[in-house]
């Protein structure tokens, strides 16, 4: 086995891993405020990608299409929050797990019927001819994934750390009652987190679509790996998802090379079950105290 081939595998796998990290980041955003995540996040990625494809087909240029697509993503996120999450949170039940799965299923079926079951190419102005960097060939599309992921995560992290609204976000996750006493509405904060999460999902769809093509099932494998990344890293560590995402992406591409491409999903899943068994709060997560 040739070292450079391995390096090639690792790099392109890791770049894909960043997409997992981005979707996982979407889980973290909502988990932080409400301890809930959208199990239908993959469908948000897919629906957003389809919407963007339709927008492009309408003749909108890429720079216009992207913000519009992100906007639609955040609207979808809000829809999920309102219909699937809020009631369950008010009743302090875990009904949101099933409800978000159900809403995902609805999205899936609707887009299957609107856009059809076939995979379609996603046009992008970014060229896909490989270029050589340090002896490893990468495509500009892959680089755009990395740039996009780091950009949006950077922006959101800046928002969380540097703006008052962002700090309010963390306040709600630290102590919901106390945040309410400061005049921070927990419901609105949770809505905001879901819309941000939807936006992140939309961006993931836009970035990954040129590579995977667009189809109803485009995100079902992605989202499973994103689950793994989110859980292995811990549902509260933004830094962790990037590290684990890169690692898992690389591991996966090596697995598919050595064991067989059908097995490429396996390491993420095994990793997830193992991580949960050994450290339920995740590698980078904080421990919890039981209270009576």
């Amino acid at each position, binding site marked *: 086995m040739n070292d450079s081939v391995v390096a090639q595998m690792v790099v392109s796998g890791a770049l894909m891993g960043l997409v997992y990290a981005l979707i996982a980041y979407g889980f973290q955003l909502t988990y932080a405020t409400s301890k809930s995540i959208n199990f239908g996040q993959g469908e948000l990625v897919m629906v957003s990608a389809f919407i963007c494809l339709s927008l492009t087909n309408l003749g909108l240029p890429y720079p216009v299409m992207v913000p519009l697509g992100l906007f639609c993503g955040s609207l979808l996120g809000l829809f999920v929050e309102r219909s699937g999450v809020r*009631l369950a949170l008010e009743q302090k039940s875990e009904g949101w797990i099933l*409800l978000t799965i159900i*809403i995902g*299923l609805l999205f899936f079926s609707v887009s299957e019927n609107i856009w059809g079951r076939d995979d379609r190419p996603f046009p992008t102005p970014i060229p896909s001819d490989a270029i050589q960097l340090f002896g490893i060939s990468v495509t500009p599309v892959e680089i755009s994934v990395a740039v996009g992921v780091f950009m949006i995560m950077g922006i959101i992290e800046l928002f969380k750390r540097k703006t008052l609204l962002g700090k309010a976000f963390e306040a709600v996750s630290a102590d919901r009652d106390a945040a309410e006493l400061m005049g921070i509405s927990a419901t609105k904060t949770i809505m905001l987190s879901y819309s941000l999460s939807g936006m992140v999902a939309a961006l993931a769809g836009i970035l990954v679509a040129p590579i995977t093509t667009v189809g109803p099932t485009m995100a079902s494998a992605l989202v*499973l790996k994103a689950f793994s990344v989110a*859980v292995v890293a811990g549902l509260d560590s933004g830094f962790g998802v990037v590290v684990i995402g890169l690692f898992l992406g690389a591991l996966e591409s090596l697995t598919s090379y050595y064991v067989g491409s059908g097995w490429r999903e396996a390491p993420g899943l095994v990793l997830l*079950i193992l991580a949960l068994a050994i450290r339920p709060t995740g590698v980078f997560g904080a421990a919890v105290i039981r209270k009576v």
Partner: protein
Amino acid sequence: MLKRLFLILGVEALLLVVLAVIPLTVNNSFVLGLLTLLAIYGILLIGLDITVGYLGQVNLAQAAFLGLGAYTAALTVTRFGFGMPAALIAAAAVGCLFGGALSFPALRLEGPQFALSTLSFMALTTTALNEWESLTGGAQGLQVPRPPLFGVMLGPKGFYWLCLILLVFVWIAMRNLLSSQWGRAFEALRDSPIATDAMGIGTLRNKAAAFTLGSGLGGLAGGLYAFNFQYLQPQVFVYDLMVILLLGVVLGGRKSLWGAFVGATIVVLLPNLLSSRILFQAFSGLGFLLALTAGIRGFVTKTTRPFQAVAPVVAMGMLVVGGIFTSNTEDWRKAIFALMLFAVMVGLPEGLMGFAASFLTRLFRIPPPELPEPVPLDEVLVKKVTDGGPLLELLDLKHYFGGVRAVDGVTLTISSGAIHGLIGPNGSGKSTLVNVISGLYAPTSGGILLHGKPLAKGSLFKVAQRGLSRTFQNLQLFSELSALDNVMVAMKGIYRSPLPLVLLGLTRKNERRAQIDALTLLKMVGLMDDCRVPAKDLPYGAQRFLEIARALARRPDLLILDEPAAGLAQPDITRLLQIIRRIHDRGITIILIEHHMDVVSELCNIVTVLDHGKIIAEGEPGEVKRHPKVIEAYLGGTVEPAGQQYIEQGNIVPVPA
């Protein structure tokens, strides 16, 4: 009693007879196929209901267990030439095996993490079935001949009867299990895992047992599935099937064998329902009307939130409108499932059977089962001999939360036979101290001895098994269970019944004894008449007493009462005093944490006063009350130069006895 038996068993027997006779009268292979599938899905959903209903966790792996069972049965027949019984046993065993293996990592988790780990397992199984082509034939599929049953080749009717018989066995075994201590423990886990641990019922092992059992049933159903279709493809055992299964359980009604059966019926009939447009329109119209009436009713009586009333109507309305405009309902299968599930989840969370059960019980006035008579308290709480020697010793115990020193070096001896009061202002560390003793928190440093031997640190479960029982300041009752069941849950460690005997229904005697004991304890705290009331519906004072009765069910040597009088009105306090005295009479040592000084003076022979995590005084109630430091800690009395006082605070100043 007779009426109850007759109605419930009668309906079940009638249904069984009808199901068994249909193939003799209707000679239609399509109907027979549906019935067979109904029996198989019945077993599968009963298994799924154990985790989803009783444990209250979203289990997304049941379809995987079905697949594993199916492939196991198929492969044992094709590769090793197993007969049908051996193959089915192997299928169930593989289900149990994988379920057990998955349960240990997965069940330490709650809620979303549990759902995720089962989802991963599901995906992993699909991958393996697809990719391990040498074994499973991959996407090509696998032919399975139906093996003989004890030398007899079963035709479609024979096989159907086999499935039905197995369903009946599973049904009976599950009813035995779920009405036993095990079933109660499963439910208790959902309400308060902390309390189950504190009652000495291992949370993890019970959860694991439940999950393993449910998975085993999944495996068994899988075996039957394989021999029914005689052809397997991995594409069947995927996410979609799992959603349909969940639909079945939720729609049928959780925590109910009937619910699982109704759910299975729906799952079997749905595909046929969707294939005819007229049928679908009629069905969705019916659903819409149902949602509308329920919604309006909820709106008028204000029993539900607006969203709960409106959302199901919108969802069912979409079904109706969709039914009119789409030509091919089959294409919209998933959306239809989703809308139906959504409407039920939001509007009818207890499912069809949950709804029907409460309705039918009222309609026929079915009386609850009769209860045995309680016995004298002596027989339940045998008087313990106390010698006044040290029972519990704390050695320089410390517990810090971040920068806050909640317990800051406590050395204390509780002598056997005492009622030892523990008082102090809010935030003085009393509750933290008992949380450390009872194993909820592991201490930062220091030692704890019970009967002179070190006590396990940081494990409620192990501490409870050593004969220490407690109540909680913020009640930790199993709120959905009746008062009687709350106490009986705690007896699980006393009357042990092995799982196989329970399944066969051979442990009724133990069950009866536990019931008598529990009733006796409830009588002592004055809750005999309320024993069927769910704990959450009891008045507040009664809930406090129920917690005490539950703590006694373990027949502890040492009972810790954490603010039992908090929030009680005067008549209840008087009753509480009586109860505590009676418990003390049985030779049970008591640590009493209390704010009501009058309660403490009335009961305790010795009182320890805590402030800032340290002991500031100890002695008889009368002395302690006069102690200047105590008065100061409570009244915030006149203050000497602050610095000096602070230094003095560092020393433990015991009151000369």
